[in-house]
């Protein structure tokens, strides 16, 4: 992948001294002259999660449209606002706040700079110049729950969460509902580690769950989840074939990083796509300012990756498809947090 270094150099070396082009002027979809930026939360741009996804979305945008893109990482919570302001004051056409935690900073920057355009992922900011993008994680989690419920041999399934906050709660509730829908006998044990960045805690949580005969764990715990994968890999190296354990990944197709032998499937959350699409809408003069966009199954913004077919049988995938349609049609409502 291209390094941040090279990319951002472009952004820095081509400061458009002229006033930013008005968004509607670029009907030809060319993003030249557009400056679009994002601010990460403390996770940093290489968090293998939403920050990274968002940055990938912007890089694709740069490649496709020629817009210049840039990011700033926040080292601590006080930086959220100052980093947002760095771009806003530098007259960027659009500044993204990536992640739930950025909510207040985006709100503040938006109110104080009514001319600026901002967008936020994973949170809702009530301001006329902010586009809020959230995901229906519960819907996607429901589907991986279906996979887990139908795949488990022990009828015991684990969920490892980071911190109990609304977003993660959505994962949990959707997942449990999915399992119960297809396998009411299965027991889902929920473990929260209290951290998103402690692989050792994830590993220990996974160890306890696997020892307790759970054979599948769905994690929604960021870096803590790495520990879950490592524990599973570890076990599968020595375990008999019928004792094999699985992990369900999160956000991205984690089988790419952790391999097919442990990754049953993943619950995709297409932050990259969301960032790409909305930024493109801006270039096209179609920025959903002041709107809340909830991206769900119907938008293909959450769901299972194609690679799932490696480990998940055709029948189960059919079942998944069936439930997907039911959710889209509204026949099933997946519970959500608060």
């Amino acid at each position, binding site marked *: 992948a291209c390094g941040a270094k090279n990319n951002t150099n472009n952004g820095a070396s081509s400061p458009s001294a002229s006033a930013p082009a008005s968004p509607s002027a670029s009907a030809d979809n060319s993003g030249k002259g557009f400056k679009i930026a994002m601010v990460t939360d403390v996770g940093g741009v290489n968090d293998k999660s939403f920050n990274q996804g968002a940055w990938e979305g912007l890089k694709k945008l740069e490649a496709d449209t020629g817009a210049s893109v840039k990011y700033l*990482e926040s*080292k601590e919570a006080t930086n959220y606002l100052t980093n947002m302001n*760095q771009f806003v*004051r530098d007259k960027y056409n659009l500044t993204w706040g990536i992640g739930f935690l950025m909510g207040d900073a985006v709100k503040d920057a938006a109110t*104080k700079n009514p001319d600026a355009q901002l967008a936020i992922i994973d949170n809702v900011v009530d301001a006329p110049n902010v586009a809020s993008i959230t995901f229906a994680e519960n819907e996607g989690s429901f589907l991986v729950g279906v996979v887990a419920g139908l795949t488990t041999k022990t009828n015991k399934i684990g969920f490892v969460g980071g*911190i109990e906050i609304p977003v993660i709660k959505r994962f949990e509730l959707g997942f449990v509902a999915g399992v119960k829908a297809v396998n009411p006998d299965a027991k889902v044990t929920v473990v929260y580690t209290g951290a998103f960045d402690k692989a050792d805690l994830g590993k220990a949580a996974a160890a306890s769950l696997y020892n307790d005969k759970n054979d599948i764990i769905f994690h929604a715990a960021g870096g803590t989840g790495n520990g879950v994968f490592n524990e599973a890999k570890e076990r599968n190296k020595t375990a008999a074939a019928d004792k094999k354990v699985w992990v369900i990944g999160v956000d991205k197709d984690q089988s790419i990083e952790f391999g097919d032998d442990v990754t049953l499937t993943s619950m995709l959350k297409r932050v990259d796509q969301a960032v790409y699409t909305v930024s493109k809408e801006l270039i096209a003069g179609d920025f959903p300012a002041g709107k809340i966009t909830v991206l769900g199954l119907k938008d293909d913004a959450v769901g299972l990756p194609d690679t799932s077919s490696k480990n998940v049988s055709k029948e189960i995938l059919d079942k998944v498809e069936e439930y997907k349609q039911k959710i889209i049609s509204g026949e099933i409502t997946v519970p959500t947090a608060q």
Partner: protein
Amino acid sequence: MNKFLKIITKESAIVPFIAIVLGLIVGAIIMLIGGYDPILAYRSLLNKVFGNPYDFGETLTAITPLVFTGLSVAFAFRTGLFNIGAEGQYIMGMTGATFVGVNLHMPWYLHAPFAIIVGTLIGGIWGMIAGYLKAARGVNEVITTIMLNWIALHLANYTVNHFLLEPGKGRSYMIDPSAQVTIGWLSRLLDDARVHWGMFFALLCVVFFYVYLFRTKQGYELRVVGSNSDAAQYAGINVNKSIVKAMFISGAFAGMAGVFQVLGVFMNQAIAASPTGHGFDGIAVALLGGNNPVGVLFGAVLFGTLSYGAAGMSFGADVPPEIIRIVIGSVIFFVAAPGIIRWLMKRLSAKKRKGEVV
């Protein structure tokens, strides 16, 4: 006042200055190795901090908590205690202030002061626990403060989750405006930077630290205990009480850092995944400042300026901001080992002399 001057001019003022220069040189060398342009980087850094009123104001905001936690660590050091727990005390101070700010409602002239007092007290009490355990049970404060940091983190999350949570926000409700301590006019002057009264409290605390420790009889007691607890006991000073008191004050300083972050900057408290680092930075600041109140102030200014400017470095020169931690580390290193500076200067002047001969 005599002593005050002595403190400022004590270690030949030249050493910290050279230390800073050397630290920046170390950073430059590392940047060169990485293929970055150090001149551009440092210019971007300065530009970020002094380039416009907004960032200047925000730099002040970044410096403020460092003064408090730096004072906290330095105060404990002066009384013979190593407080690694400023982090936890900071978090607890924050929690106390948020609780008052969110759950109680009163006029501004009561609300903000009450929030400050409660947060400060809770920070102090959190420090006092470690002091008490040391005094009463002989438990090493290094261990307890480390453990109390983690306990504070989770206790604060518990409090936010169960008593303060704004549903769906992952943080507490906003505190009442009556509890806020922002300085409207200055903020407007500085282009909406989040400047707040905490700054001035920090300066007051610097003065308090100096006056209390070096001018009052209680401070005298604490210093005696810190320097020679056996002699203190022989002199009839209650050593255990002093330890508890010292940790209370140390904790209160750190607590105040958290208080003002809530009342002046965030206006709410988020559920935290991991420690903020302000407490640990406080150790560095205390060391930079040689555990002197005035030194701490300068240390915090240096630390805060470099840290805040680091974002400018990555914005303007694409230099990874981690460099700044190396720079800060090197500065502390050179401050702490003036021997190295003397040695370097000797080498340099020796070389120069040699050069002249040739």
